[in-house]
């Protein structure tokens, strides 16, 4: 059973968006369901701080032993922090996708749209 925290928001592509103490800055990663589907993650390619993306833009790549998947930005904004620890320990995305396995923090340039709440995401993955 995939872990879907109630206080986060989700995309159809299985990224999550989590608030921080700064109301305009959000943490982005992939969901527990996504890491389980990918299997053992061996490489995460992330952007540099300062990069800007529109909603649905590709911001990185995640590689499991048997699969490659693109990472899509759930929101429009600028990357203000990158989880460089994933370079040395990509498997933390498998172990703790909502914690140590986070990927980037973005400062929003426009309000988020078309994100799902936990119940809608649960339905999306067929739960």
């Amino acid at each position, binding site marked *: 059973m995939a872990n879907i925290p109630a206080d986060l928001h989700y995309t159809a592509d299985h990224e999550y968006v989590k608030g921080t103490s700064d109301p305009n800055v959000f943490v982005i990663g992939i969901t527990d369901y996504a890491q389980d589907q990918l299997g*053992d993650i*061996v*490489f995460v390619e992330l952007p540099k701080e300062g990069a800007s993306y529109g909603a649905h833009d590709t911001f990185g790549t995640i590689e499991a032993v048997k699969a490659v998947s693109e990472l899509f930005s759930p929101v429009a904004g600028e990357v203000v922090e990158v989880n460089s620890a994933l370079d040395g320990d990509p498997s933390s995305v498998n172990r703790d996708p909502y914690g140590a396995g986070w990927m980037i923090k973005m400062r929003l340039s426009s309000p988020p749209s078309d994100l799902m709440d936990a119940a809608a995401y649960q339905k999306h993955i067929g739960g």
Partner: protein
Amino acid sequence: MGSSEAGALKRTPFHDIHVALGAKMVPFAGYEMPVQYPTGITVEHKAVREACGLFDVAHMGEFLVRGPGAVDFVNYVTTNNVAALTVGQAHYSGILNERGTFEDDCLVYREADGLMMVVNASNAAKDFAHISRHLARFDCTLTDVSDEIALLALQGPKAAAILQPLTDVALGSVGYYHFARGTVAGVRDVIVSRTGYTGEDGFELYFPNAHAATIWNALMATGGVTPTGLGCRDSLRLEMGMALYGNDIDDTVTPLEAGLAWIVKLAKGDFVGRDALVRQKESGVPRKLVGFTFDERAIPRHGYPVFCQGAPSGMVCSGTMSPSLGTPVGTCYLPAGQTAEGTPFEVEIRGKRVPARVVKTPFYKQGSHL
């Protein structure tokens, strides 16, 4: 990995066991097969390198060849020298077409009363039709028993210690690429073959489908065996530089190009594809399969474009992040003269050219059977 075919997927006799274990089942070569179990590919890979894994490979095809002309027939449709096999010995070989390119790769087992050919599931029907065309000239019969025979691969440095208490075959007397028939877990007449596709010591067990659960459960009950899926089977074989049909070899390449000249015995007499290989040997082999790595962190994958001295040079055949080494490993064909160890070239990954260099295979050099 092979492609799935349209229509219903076949199941091996171990199917329900995989599902009960929570395996991720995927279409492979027309079968529904376990790609991994809940522990994951990395753990399974490590289990085979350090202890013992159990693979369901019952999808593989088996043909029996019987009759006075059996050796001559198999010698004619494969590249290695079947006449050199003793009873109780097996070897790796190739099935070629008249162009000298691979229809398949296979194992050939010699028994007192005939031979067994073990072929890839994805090619079994094609292989059977291909070699049948030559059957009339030989005094022997050819039977496809793929749907009756189950096959398990018990692989890892602890495989012999785990299997010995369950069998009356003296495993110490069964050498690498040799086999014997005996009782395993109470099931009589099992072929116990010291072969595998992982680089580790281990055994492949051939027996009728009806005994599938008996043998699987007896091996698992020893407590020392990890169920292992096709995912780690691929990473294990690639670390050893062992060819996979559909990735590293297919009907566009010859054994000489694939670095498999050692399974081609031109001196044994005529065989399908021999003339083409003799011509290629005389005119020179235009390209060769090499192993490579990257110095930066990127992962090569099947199908990524390859550039040698700036010019397109086909694609990556196989590639992965080696679980044992923690480095990227891959294979591709490079033009003759560009295949020496250390030769630089490039692989295009998502629009970016990544510097690669040729390295010797096997990538992993500590296997308990190299």
